[in-house]
């Protein structure tokens, strides 16, 4: 395929130039990746600087100025208790973004560890770990998360725990497959032959060869985790009611259908952030797996 080979050769060519130039070259071929990175950075900055940027306190109520449409004073209008929607959306990133990242971090760590063990040890360990992961995968994400939060009680921490419980099997399966593939490589066989300890082989030889694929999967997954977290929150199974969490804000919008600004802005926030994360994930996958470009 001409275009595929040209991609590969262009990467090879750029490899000879400076590191910065190489990155610029890759990014130049990935406009969506650039857009994604910019949008995510904007949201992270907005969340970090919310207390400086936001014109109002996210929790400050003013019931005499409630459900006002957007105006100069309230760029995003006000919600049912007279809180400033724009300020709340800015602060919302402080909850949703870390929540999504935490889910992926813990889910991928737990899952990768399980998968690596299963793949590396094989035998009965493999069977047990994989059967357990299949059990969890048989429940759809939101249903399992709903059941877990129902058991633990709704709050942010439990929502994250529920999502980790849902998330790890995907990584376990990915990691197991990768480990099995790497294990059969010559250099691993060689390590065995020279009598390297098993722990050394796993940690120094096998895992480093799997990390890139796991990382690509995590970026592809963050958007999904954010979506699911917001969905739980929408159902009332996440942070407490006052919280300016985006899913929560949209849920209130169900009662305030005509007052579109109460739910459309937080909706736009989630959508833009998740789109951005997906652009990044797709872009990274293309770079690491140029065959599919």
């Amino acid at each position: 395929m001409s275009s595929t080979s040209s991609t590969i050769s262009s990467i090879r060519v750029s490899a000879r130039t400076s590191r910065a130039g190489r990155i610029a070259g890759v990014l130049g071929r990935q406009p969506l990746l650039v857009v994604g990175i910019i949008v995510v950075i904007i949201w992270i900055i907005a969340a970090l600087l919310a207390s400086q940027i936001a014109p109002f306190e996210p929790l400050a109520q003013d019931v005499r100025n409630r459900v006002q449409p957007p105006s100069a004073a309230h760029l995003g209008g006000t919600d049912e208790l007279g809180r400033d929607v724009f300020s709340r959306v800015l602060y919302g990133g402080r909850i949703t973004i870390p929540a999504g990242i935490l889910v992926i971090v813990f889910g991928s760590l737990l899952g990768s560890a399980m998968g690596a063990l299963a793949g590396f040890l094989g035998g009965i360990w493999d069977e047990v770990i994989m059967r357990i992961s299949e059990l969890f995968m048989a429940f759809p994400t939101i249903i399992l998360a709903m059941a877990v939060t129902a058991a633990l009680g709704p709050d942010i921490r439990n929502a994250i725990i529920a999502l980790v419980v849902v998330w790890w099997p995907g990584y376990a399966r990915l990691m197991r497959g990768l480990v099995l593939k790497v294990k059969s490589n010559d250099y691993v066989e060689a390590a065995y032959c020279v009598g390297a300890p098993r722990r050394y082989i796993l940690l120094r030889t096998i895992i480093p060869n799997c990390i890139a694929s796991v990382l690509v999967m995590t970026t592809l997954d963050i958007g999904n985790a954010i979506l699911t977290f917001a969905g739980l929150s929408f159902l009332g199974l996440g942070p407490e009611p006052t919280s300016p969490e985006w899913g929560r804000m949209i849920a209130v919008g169900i009662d305030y259908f005509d007052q579109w600004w109460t739910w459309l802005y937080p909706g736009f926030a989630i959508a833009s952030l998740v789109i951005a994360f997906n652009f990044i994930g797709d872009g990274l996958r293309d770079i690491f797996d140029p065959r599919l470009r």
Partner: protein
Amino acid sequence: MKSGRLLLLIMIITVLVTGVVAAQDETVLVIGHAESTDSLDPARGYTQTKDIIDHVTYENLVTFPQADASEILPMLATDWTISEDGLTYTFNLRGDAVFSDGSPVTADDVAFSVNRLKYVQGSPSFLAADIASVTADDADTVSFTLTQINPAFLANLANTAFGVVNADVVRENGGSDAEDAATADTAEAYLNGTSAGSGPYLLESWEPQVETVLVRNPNFYGDAPYFDRIIITNIPEAATQKVALESGEIDLALDLTSDQIAPLEGNPAISIYRGPGNIVHFLLMNEDPDIGGPVSDPLVQRAIRLALDYEGYQALWGGVQPGSITFVGNAYAFTPEQGVKRNLDEARALLAQAGYADGFDITLEYPIFTFQGVNMETNAQKIQADLAEVGINVTLSPAELQVALENYRTGAEGFGYWFWGPDILDAIDMLAFLPGGKVADERALWTPDRADAALNDLVARARVATDPAEREEVFTALQASMQENSPFAPFIQPDVQTAFRSDIEGYVWHPQWLLDVALLSRSM
């Protein structure tokens, strides 16, 4: 192109849909309602959904006027006498009333229904608690003996819980009025599927959380109602009710919030009813220090009453500040002007006096529930903000209604937010919130031994007082006392509002049964 075909398909569908002419021969009324009941059995259900349905499928001995509870009117009974000692009531039945199967309504049916209510231990059974016995003297005469004088007994009888059921039919389907009816009676499933009463309508089907269908009772002995068929469709989301009302899919929306009704104002196709309600939203503070913690302290309880932004809640929902725990408009009830005024300095001083100068942390429990357009979650957030101003740090703990009820009912709730609709449309209703009453004793653990003797004496007098002057004196003293010292903080009595299609006539809001669908008709 595929997308072209899809578009075409959608267009064809749209044409089909708009082209279908609803050729209906029968008159149908469709009501959108957030259904909230677990039973339509008169002796078991105790919710407003059940009231709306059972009010037209069953009849009572006595009833209220169409729009209020100002007097007691005959219904199945034509007249009644009360004995000298006030303990025996004798009713004469009208004699021509028949059930939906055509059989006559007799004194036996009345006795069966009342005993069944009493012994079945359903949610409304407490209404029959002070009935010592009920006997059918002859086919058209029934008499009740009470264990104590109850000035509100007749008002009680107007509750749908006392709806008279067809004893033979209910017995055939597992009904029992014996003392062990709580376990022996198995007629609930039958009564959830059809009705066995003498009202103008007959329950055709109830599919929980989906819809309830009423059809005209073919054997109704009174004037036939206008609509052949009433569909009460379950639409839990108020916003959906609004959209459905605007598009004409439903005729009546019962659960809209004031924010949803506001944009309907200018719509000529829609009429709006707005009027004072009788639901009081209140905070409950447990008297037991182990459960309530800081809020069991009377000083803190008063401070919380002083800290609430009463006008703010009116800005949210309309309506008035309840002058006391009983609704404004009830007999002898305090007016809004007599209610507690917000005073943050005094509240802070009281907290300091109680040893909480720096405030304290507390969890507020409440159900996730929107009742008559009032979203309790919105109020809970406002309570949190109000109390933060005097240093009380509130954590919100919402739960699904049935789950939240659990702690409330067992008295395990330290700090809760609930609302109260009167059981009995009489001043005596407020006794539920005083020591010896249901809410005070069982929910707030404000039992007679926790209250002082003077208050217990006042309550005892209020229970049996019949002379208007004495009642006024006693109930006024009780309300004044509760403002100073009680584990309750009533904060809003919202307006009620209903929106309906303009061609619907005869809409009347009723404080007891909300809506009498038999009064409605459609103008041509």
